[in-house]
């Protein structure tokens, strides 16, 4: 069984891309969760659909549509967002709503000019097992760029996340730090929603990070733990989906479902362990 699993080229691609995406999502996710930007993370993933459908309309590469849509929405959210959490939520919602409306428009126009943009649908329901192998190098490069941005702004963002006023007093350019972080977040979720769909993108961004933050408050430790958890969850999800082919007479469970199930069960299990043993940090942020 296992040898068949690892011998399948589909699984090999899925494992490589899944691990890269999972590791990046886990690391970026720790900041996303600590900063309370889960909604922005999810919105940016879904907004990939705007880029995909819009790029098809203009006849340019969908990849650039994705990246452009992500960065533009990130900047827009940061520009109209206020510092109050409630205000930021509403700002995210307005940008998100407008973006989804544009998607509806682009999809209609796409069908009018002939053909249809599968990208938007694959963003919403993409699958790790139907990856386009040509995308693999691009995904790896985007992942590296994202990690580089995070590494460069790591100190700024950690300080700004913990205490914005203190960070400003220490001379951290807070506006730049939060905008750059949102761009890194946008790149991370775009690359994952492009490759594995928005559902998985949000799951891998939030789940492992939230689980890790139940056990530690150190951002570096949490990032490492989240990245490892996410990679393991992707592996387990792929395996279960692969094996389930034999359980139901030749129609396997979608890999998005098995990975999300692994993510959700891990988080709920971790919550239960913490509740039973009083283990969680008393002021745990997740």
């Amino acid at each position, binding site marked *: 069984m296992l040898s068949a699993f690892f011998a399948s080229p589909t699984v090999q691609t899925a494992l490589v891309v899944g691990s890269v995406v999972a590791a990046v999502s886990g690391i970026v996710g720790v900041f996303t969760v600590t900063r309370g930007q889960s909604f922005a993370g999810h919105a940016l993933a879904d907004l990939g659909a705007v880029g995909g459908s819009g790029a098809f309309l203009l006849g340019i590469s969908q990849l650039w549509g994705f990246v452009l849509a992500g960065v533009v929405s990130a900047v827009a959210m940061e520009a109209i967002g206020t510092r109050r959490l409630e205000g930021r939520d509403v700002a995210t919602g307005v940008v998100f709503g407008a973006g989804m409306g544009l998607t509806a428009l682009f999809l209609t126009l796409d069908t009018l000019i002939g053909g249809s943009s599968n990208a938007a649908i694959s963003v919403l329901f993409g699958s790790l097992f139907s990856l386009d192998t040509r995308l693999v190098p691009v995904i790896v490069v985007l992942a590296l760029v994202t990690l580089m941005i995070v590494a460069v702004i790591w100190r700024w963002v950690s300080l700004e996340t913990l205490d914005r006023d203190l960070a400003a007093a220490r001379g951290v350019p807070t506006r730049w730090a939060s905008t750059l972080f949102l761009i890194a977040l946008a790149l991370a979720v775009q690359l994952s929603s492009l490759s594995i769909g928005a*559902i998985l993108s949000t799951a891998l961004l939030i789940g492992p990070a939230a689980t890790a933050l139940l056990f530690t408050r150190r951002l570096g430790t949490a990032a490492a733990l989240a990245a490892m958890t996410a990679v393991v969850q992707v592996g387990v999800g792929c395996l279960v989906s692969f094996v389930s082919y034999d359980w139901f007479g030749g129609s396997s469970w*979608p890999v998005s479902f098995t990975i999300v199930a692994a993510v959700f069960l891990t988080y709920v299990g971790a919550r239960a362990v913490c*509740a039973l043993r009083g283990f969680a940090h008393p002021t745990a942020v997740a």
Partner: protein
Amino acid sequence: MFAAYLMTAWAGGTIVAVVAGVVGFFVVLRGNAFFAHAVPHGAFAGAAGAVLIGVNPLVGLGVFAAGGAVGIVLLGRRARHDVVTALTLVTMLALGALFLSRSREYSAQVFALLFGQILGVSPDQLVTTGLLGVGCLALVALIVRPLLLASVSPALAASRGVPVTGVDLVFALVVAAATTVSVPMVGALLMFALLIGPPAAAQRLARTAGQGLVLSVALTLVTVWASIALAVTTDLPIGFFATAIGALLYGGAAGAARSRRGRVE
């Protein structure tokens, strides 16, 4: 524009607008935008499940909306609300992906549920929608005072003896009911735009809660009516107009509020 076959669309749109205006007012007041996105979007998975087992999609929609909303409130009591919302949402969507993979009826129905089809509302649907809408508004009316207090300041509400979790749960059910009313018409992805855009604009302009509520309903009605009219005349999707008008209203209101106060928040 007012042809007979469009009358159900106008009536349905009006019901949706009134419900969304009232519920959206509280959603914005509570900073629950993510919740308002997660419930309709996740509930669509329930509709996919209902199609699979041959039940009315509205039932699946309602069950998933209520289950998801209550689950988020209960799980979120001792954790970060947005984290729990995100995880519940993706779990529901993943179940939706599972249901869709089991069923043969793929894109058309799913697409309709995501982006809505207000021009395809049947008169029977209208009755169900109307009843659910009235129920939803009655529930809000029943708890309006504790809900207002718990939304503005949960701590103060708790100290006054308001059962905050109970109020949260009832409100979660209200959002679920509003979702079930609206998703078949305006779609899962655009329902929440109605819950956020016009009510957020109203919040920026109004000085009191009562004003805000009335203005919120008025702006949502304007948005929906204008969107139906534009969608009929231009033949473009209604969701685009609804979200664009909502965003413009919010932008305008934010600008007006800013210049009125003369300072930047």
